[in-house]
Each structure stands twice: as structure tokens, then as C-alpha cells.
């Protein structure tokens, strides 16, 4: 045995050192920063399925995290190779689809834009891109899953004048009366953008027709910026899609070129009736359109104010502006990146900074009532200095 002391000693030391390092590491892993929501008023049910994305800084380390409101906080930065490899960045609705239709979902682009689901169908409509030397060949990749029979229908469709497009994407999928509707957005090689609607007969697996909804053009020093406002994380039927176009121009000012908006337009498309309608929006309100949502046939637009949020209603069917309502956030401390608002599922979510930390507010858009109010707290923070930024809620 005496001759083996060196190797035995080295093996034992190695085992003990590496072993204790990883025991320590696994203990520490349980002690990472955790967000906690402390209810002040309202119903905790409102937190279900909610996830909060943000950055947390302590010392000179900043970590990105995702906090499931009814669960744990996951630190996203500093993931190990394998964690990075296996962490799915898909949204919960897609995760649910994968769970239910594992083989149908295989090999698909897992963005909710490309999916539609109702009681009887799951539809996927993605765009296949075949990269050529100096162009991209686009074609549709459409699969329809019949939930009852588990049958999958594929509808093939090649785009005829594909070389004229620089990019092609599907922005929404819907099914109306057995007809599949794809709303696509594409940019042209020569400049400008298009929004097209493709209508398919699912039964006959046939293209029924296409319609150009919006087309923008680019001139020498002016161009049009197109934005599409719809609930991107939803795979359910959406009745309305909101389009905004803003004409921008390069103007010389003191020797520098600056952009200036010379005009704008807001349009709403009804997917069921195939109608595109203009909405008259005041200039000051135009920028707030990005924080808007459509519930039933009402458009809600939110604007942050000094001590709260102002919400304005617009009725799409009657073309009438409704009354303003104010959400009072008395402790709101106005400042850079101090509020994050999102409107979805007929509710308004706001996280904002107060003198003692972050608060979360959830309100009902229809009634204007508060559903939940609470404090966002950070536990397990080892260092004194801390910073919290919330940049996304879904």
C-alpha cells in the first residue's frame, strides 16, 4: 500500500475538493434572488399564469430573470451551457400545445404568431425560407391538425413572385367559417412594405384568394413606417388587427439630418368581415397607440401621467371616442424607466417604482376597477446595492 500513497492522496483530495465545491454550488443555487409578490388588495387569482421579465443588479453583477408570478424566479443570465441549450424560450400557450400535440408541433417555428387554436383545430402557418445566393425563396408551410381525428392536412403554397420580396412573414392566423386566413407582412426589394391576406378553403386544401390590405412606398427621402398592433402571444381568434402608418422624412437641420413625421394613419382590420377601417386619432395620442388593446369592439389606449395612467376608449363599430378614465397610482415616482404598462386580456398591467420598491397594479379595462395591487419584493439578496428593472410582463 505504501507505494500507492501518492495516487491515493491525490484521488481523495480531488474527490473531496470537487465534491464539496458542487455541494456548495447546489446549496447556493437554491439561494438565488427570488421575487415575491405581496398582496395589498385585490385577488391573487389574477396573478395566475403571469410572468415578469426583468433585470436584477446587485454589486457589479446584473442578472436577467423571469419570475412566474405564482412560482419561482429563474435567473436567465449565467446559465450553464446545457441549461442554455435546453431552456425553451417559448410562451406558455405554445408549451401547452407542445404538451398536447407533441408530434404535430415538431419542427415548427414556435412563435405564437404562426398558430391558431380553437375547439376543433390547431393551425400552423409558417414561412419556409430557402436561402439562395442573393435572394430568399419564400413559401408557406401550412399544417392543419384536426383535434378529433388527429389528422394533419398540409396545404402547399409557393409564392409566385418571391424574388421581389426581401422578407416575408406571417403575422396572424385565423379561421373564419371553415376558411383559413393568413395575414402576412412583407418587405419589397425595391422598398416599401405590404400586408396581404390569404384565404384558404381548409376542406379542399385550396387557396381561395389573396387581397392586398396595405401597401407603403418609399420615396427619395421619405418613407412610411408600418406597425401592427395585435396580441402577439395569443393563438386564439382575434377579431381586429390594428395598423398604424407613419410617414417619416429626413430633414436637414443645422447640417444634421433628422427624422420628422409628416403624417400618420391608424386603420383597423376586421378579420371576420374583411373590412379595413380608418380611425381618427389625435396627434398627441398617436404615440400611445402602442400601449393599446382591443377588447370586444372597443380600443383602449393608455398613457402614463404624472400620478397614474390615463385610459381612453374608442368604439370601433360606432366610430366614437368614449370617456377617459384615470388609474390613480399615488405613490408612483416618475422617472426614467420607472413604469412598465401592458394591456392584454382586457386588463391593464402596470409595474412602477415607488419610494420603497416596485409595485404591481392590475386593472380591468371595461370597468376601470382595480383587480390586484401588490408589492414586488426581492428576497435572498446578499448585497446592499440593488437595482430592479421590469421590462416585460406576459
Amino acid at each position, binding site marked *: 500500500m505504501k507505494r500507492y500513497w*501518492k495516487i491515493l492522496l491525490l484521488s481523495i483530495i*480531488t474527490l473531496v475538493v*470537487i465534491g464539496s465545491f458542487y455541494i456548495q454550488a*447546489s446549496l447556493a443555487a437554491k439561494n438565488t434572488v427570488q421575487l415575491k409578490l405581496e398582496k395589498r388588495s385585490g385577488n391573487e387569482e389574477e396573478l395566475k399564469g403571469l410572468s415578469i421579465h426583468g433585470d436584477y443588479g446587485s454589486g457589479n453583477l446584473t442578472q436577467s430573470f423571469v419570475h412566474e408570478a405564482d412560482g419561482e424566479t429563474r435567473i436567465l443570465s449565467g446559465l*450553464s*451551457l446545457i441549461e442554455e441549450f435546453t431552456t425553451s424560450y417559448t410562451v406558455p400557450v405554445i408549451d401547452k400545445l407542445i404538451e398536447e400535440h407533441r408530434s404535430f408541433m*415538431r419542427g415548427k417555428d414556435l412563435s405564437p404568431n404562426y398558430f391558431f387554436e380553437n375547439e376543433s383545430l390547431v393551425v400552423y402557418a409558417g414561412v419556409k425560407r430557402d436561402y439562395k445566393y442573393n435572394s430568399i425563396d419564400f413559401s408557406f408551410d401550412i399544417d392543419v391538425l384536426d383535434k378529433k381525428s388527429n389528422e394533419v392536412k398540409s396545404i402547399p403554397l409557393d409564392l409566385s413572385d418571391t424574388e421581389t420580396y426581401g422578407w416575408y412573414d406571417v403575422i396572424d392566423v385565423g379561421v373564419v367559417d371553415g376558411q383559413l386566413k393568413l395575414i402576412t407582412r412583407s418587405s419589397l426589394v425595391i422598398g416599401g412594405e405590404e400586408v396581404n391576406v390569404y384565404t384558404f378553403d381548409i376542406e379542399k386544401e385550396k387557396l381561395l384568394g389573396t387581397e392586398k390590405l396595405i401597401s407603403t412606398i418609399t420615396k427619395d427621402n421619405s418613407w412610411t413606417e408600418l406597425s401592427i398592433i395585435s396580441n402577439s402571444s395569443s393563438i386564439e381568434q382575434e377579431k381586429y388587427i390594428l395598423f398604424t402608418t407613419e410617414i417619416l422624412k429626413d430633414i436637414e437641420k443645422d447640417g444634421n439630418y433628422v427624422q420628422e413625421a409628416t403624417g400618420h394613419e391608424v386603420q383597423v382590420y376586421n378579420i371576420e368581415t374583411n373590412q379595413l377601417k380608418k380611425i381618427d386619432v389625435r396627434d398627441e395620442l398617436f404615440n400611445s397607440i402602442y400601449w393599446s388593446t382591443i377588447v370586444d369592439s372597443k380600443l383602449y389606449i393608455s398613457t402614463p401621467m404624472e400620478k397614474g395612467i390615463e385610459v381612453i376608449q374608442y368604439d370601433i363599430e360606432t366610430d366614437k371616442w368614449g370617456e377617459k378614465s384615470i388609474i390613480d397610482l399615488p405613490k408612483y415616482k416618475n422617472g426614467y424607466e420607472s413604469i412598465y404598462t401592458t394591456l392584454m386580456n382586457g386588463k391593464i398591467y402596470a409595474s412602477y417604482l415607488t419610494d420603497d420598491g416596485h409595485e404591481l397594479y392590475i386593472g380591468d379595462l371595461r370597468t376601470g376597477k382595480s383587480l390586484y395591487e401588490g408589492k414586488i419584493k426581492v428576497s435572498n439578496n446578499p448585497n446592499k446595492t440593488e437595482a430592479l428593472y421590469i421590462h416585460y410582463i406576459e
Partner: protein
Amino acid sequence: MNRYMKLVNFEFNRFIKLYFVLIAFTIVVQLSGVVVKSKSYLNGANEAIKESMLTKSEYVIQYGPMSFIDISMSPWIMGPIALCAITLVIYVFFIWYRDWVGKNTFSYRLFMLPTARLNIYLAKATTILLFVLGLIALQLVLLPIENQIFKWMVEDVYRIDLSVLEIANQYYLNLLFPKNILEFILFYGAGMTAVTMVFTAILFERSYRIKGIFYGIVYCAVSILIFLAPLLLQASLLENYFYPMELLFLEIAACVIVLAGAIWIGNLLIKNKVRV
């Protein structure tokens, strides 16, 4: 003690002197690196404070504090780690060729041992693994010591304190220390697969000499292709067919196939084809 263990011990002792040199070099260079780096920060701070009449905390606000990362990212720490890594990579080859080179014909003795020759192969692989893990452990012992020296040398005001875990998770060091034990096993398992692949390629060369170099390269190419097959298929033909977890398991399976293949082919070569 069986012959495999004795062989491991034997191979171990053949390299131990150089190994101790590596360890000593690492300790000396890294510890002096901590001292040098801390000193140079302090000197810079003192000078700036004297010249610009700053307070210590003003200096920190203006020029930034010092953390152990500044030391661990420097060649003082990374250099010895790189040197150890390179030495071991070279030794992966030398552990075989040293039995053939020079006047001594120790390969005769090794291949005339009354034990399955695969044991020689496995003993050499085990030795490499022991040396690698030993150096990893050394670094894990050194980090807290170096961190402590850093704390003694640099005042609180100038310093951002990090735990050893935080240090180990930074940048290149996290390549040496995967986050959890499972990943550690997978990571170093993949590393050992690469070592056995090189071993088998060396045995191709030792069996067929010039032609064997060609065989060895082809063998390595095939092994790497098998290892990458799931990823390549995912990226090309199958168009993201597999979910991430499935892909991970396929990768592990591919790695096991490559490892088993390396040992199996290595065994055939060392048993039937190798030349002394």
C-alpha cells in the same frame, strides 16, 4: 490490487514529477499574480489620490473598484491554467509515444504483460482523467486562498467581494467548472470521449504507421461526425425536428456511441494489430 489499478499507479508515477512541477508553477505564479495585481491597483489609486486630491471613494467612483475578476481574467491566473491544459493535451499523445521512442523498448514489456491489453489503454485514460481532475481540484483550492489574499491586500472601499462560486462562474473559468455536478460529469465525460478518440487514433498510427495516420484522421472525422450528427440533422434535413431536451439526450447518446466505439476499436487494435 488488480493489474489495472497497478498500471494506473505505474502510469501515474511516470508523470508525477512533471505534474508536481506544474502544480508548483501554478501556485507560485497565481499567488504572485494576486499580489502584483492588487499592488498595481493600489499604487494607481494612491498616485491618483495624491495628484488629483481625490478621496478614496471618489477614486472608486471615477476609476471603478477592483474585483477578483480583474485578477482571475489576467494572464497571472489564466496563464498557468492554459499551460497545464496544453501540457496535458500534449501528454495525451506522449503517454503512448514515450513507450516507443528512444532506446528503451518499454512497449515490449507493456504488451507482454499477462493482462488484457485493454487494461493498458484504460489505465492510460484513467491516468489522464486523474491528472485533469487533480488540477481542477487544485484550482478550486487556490481560488479561495487567492480571494482571501486579495481581501487582505485591498481595502474594503476599493473592493467588490465575490464568492468563490461567483468567481468560478465567470467567463472562461466556467468552462473549467460547470454549474452543477451533472453537467460536470457530462462535460468531463465528453472530454474523456475526446481523449479516448485520440488514443484510438494514435493506436491506428501505431498499428499501420504511415497509412495509420490516414486511418486515424478518417476515424476521427467519422467519430466527430457521429458526435455532431444530431445537431447537423437538426440544422439541415430535419429542420428543428427535435425538442431541446430530446436533442440533449441524443447528444449524450451520440457521445456514448463515440466513446464505446473508441474503446471497442482501440481494444481490437491494441489486441491484434499494434506493432512494437
